[in-house]
């Protein structure tokens, strides 16, 4: 996974509470076989009019936010469906950082699997960033994960909280699976004492059972 240390980028404000993952990547795009290409369809129903004409009323299509890489959002961002297609879309569009007062648990977790930093600030701090983004063309922020700071060029500086283990995963771009597999002996030892089985006592109409070990 792509490591994250610091990032400086233009901010795009999405002034809406409870943005759910259905809005980020609608159902018709869940039939993909790969993780790529979701940036084009991010916020599809808000972003496009019939015939995929850009909807000029949606913030992502405002010329002033073209090239934004910091997504400023409201409370409970990413609620609803567990679809990882949502963070895939956020990342593929070009966002490396999301800033919000709170996130839904599954989305928050999924961000870390994809090198996206979901930074949490207070409601008041997020309000201030919305004001500044609105006021200043090309408003940009520098996000420093090591120091846990978000700063602009006018001297504003906010600290954000993040669990140390989460921070390490992003800083090092760790492969979770590889890390867990290093503890293979622990897993094997657990399996010896805690025998998880799934025995079928009555036949059910299921395939490939005999292929199992």
């Amino acid at each position, binding site marked *: 996974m792509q490591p994250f240390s610091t990032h400086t980028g233009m901010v795009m404000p999405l002034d809406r509470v409870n943005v*759910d993952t259905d809005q980020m990547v609608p159902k018709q795009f869940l039939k993909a076989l790969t993780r790529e290409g979701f940036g084009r369809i991010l916020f599809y129903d808000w972003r496009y009019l019939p015939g995929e004409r850009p909807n000029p009323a949606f913030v992502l299509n405002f010329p002033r936010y073209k090239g934004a890489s910091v997504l400023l959002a409201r*409370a409970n961002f990413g609620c609803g469906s567990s679809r990882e297609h949502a963070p895939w879309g956020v990342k593929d569009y070009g966002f490396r950082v999301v800033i919000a007062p709170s996130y839904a648990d599954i989305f928050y977790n999924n961000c870390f699997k994809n090198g996206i930093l979901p930074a949490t600030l207070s409601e008041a701090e997020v309000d201030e960033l919305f004001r500044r983004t609105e006021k200043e063309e090309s408003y940009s922020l520098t996000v420093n994960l090591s120091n846990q700071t978000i700063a602009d060029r006018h001297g504003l500086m906010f600290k954000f909280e993040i669990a140390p283990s989460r921070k390490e995963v992003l800083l090092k771009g760790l492969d979770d699976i590889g890390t867990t597999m290093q*503890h293979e002996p622990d*897993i094997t030892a657990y399996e010896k004492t*805690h025998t*998880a089985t799934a025995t079928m006592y009555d036949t059910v109409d299921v395939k490939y059972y005999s292929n*199992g070990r």
Partner: protein
Amino acid sequence: MFPIYPLLFNFQPLPGALHLHPFTGVLESQWKPMTTDTSYKTLYQKIWDSHVVREEPGQPSIIYIDRHLIHEGTSPQAFAGLRAESRKVRRPDLTFAVMDHSVSTTDRTLPILDNDAKLQFEALERNCREAGVRLFDMNSKNQGIVHIIGPELGITQPGQTIVCGDSHTSTHGAFGTLAFGIGTSEVEHVLATQCLVQSRSKMLHILVHGKRPKGVTAKDLILAIIGKIGIGGGNGHVAEYGGEAIRSLSMDGRMTVCNMTIEGGARAGMIAPDETTFAYMEGRPFVPRGKAFQEAVDRWRQLHSDENAKFDMTVELHAEKIAPQVTWGTNPGMVTSVTERVPDPHDFKDLNDQKATESALQYMGLKAGTPIVDIPVDRVFIGSCTNSRLDDLRAAAHFVEGKHVAKSIKQALIVPGSRGIKTQAEKEGLDKIFRDAGFEWRDAGCSMCIGMNADVLPPHERSASTSNRNFEGRQGKDSRTHLVSPVMAAAAAIAGHFVDVRELDVVNVE
């Protein structure tokens, strides 16, 4: 009630400010950690403790997963990831696959016209064949929605950890399991290691006291709970449900409650197993028999929160005060009683709530102040992992028997949660009752809850739906969904609009 979040639940200390505990208001330095006394444990702690593979101070734990459920929608990238790293599925015997999200609910002998869906089915088939993972394909007699067939076949059992790349995995918590939805990267992680890296959640206790009035179902309880705590109210928590109104629910009703736990932000919902649970389990295909079953029940009896166990937050409701619920907006927390009116944005103090309400009313094509019972519906959907079990179908059938859907209704769909449920319902003659009343009787799948197959709600049409999410566009672009109980959906089909089902002839099932 509108989400009171973030006022109550989204505690975020301001730099330099006194750090007050969000619920007690005491200084942070005076906080007493709620879980210092380790002799009393919650159900969640008990299951967690018995699944820890590795723990290190300051690090998330590695926990073991007993059941990994997968479906065609969120698994192909996980298998592709394994292949790219030459990794194998560690425990194919603990992994169960099903086709449910995009399957047709009509004739499955016809060719699949949606090529993308077809490719996903083929990928799942190939992945299961190669890894030796049990697959319930679309033609299996036991096919159904992943969260329906797990419990139905006894794959889900008390005390287990269960994950699936689907947020409604919380359903399985009705059996006293720790069950939650995960993203595709975690699906890949579980396939490779049969483990997950997790930090402990906080614990939310939700108590519903008293008796449910006639016509008030499990769905109404959970909608009322979400209305009270807000859709982010449970973020960071695992919820455990208790109280007389929960205890008196059947397993079908308990699954409805746990299913929608995620809509209140808590990733998992749990109900301690009891005699109702054990009676449900006995004789199901994956449940041990005879002496082994009795031994299992003895173990399962330990699965409850100790009397003095501490929760981080407690929410209490009284069932007698809960009326049938109907959502009016674009998230499940935008809900009210059937006796109420569509709210006005100015009813809310918070500016963000006002804006959200305004936007929701515009999307839903509703005017503030409209009585809920005056809202006409175009289509009715009884189905989804929330409400497609036998109790749901029986309650709806009991109500519609001898009646007919209103002329104004364009479509009324019954989509059983599994083919097993469909077969049983047909034995009981429910299909005939529904057909005679003007409903369509379909094959099992996710259907018009997610609209990944042909069962899409057309633009600007309004549905009474027993599903779990009324998000913008969820059931189709510009579609307008009102979440209700199966009884309310059936009544809306007959009347053409919502009605106070307490005044009608309804049986008191979930």
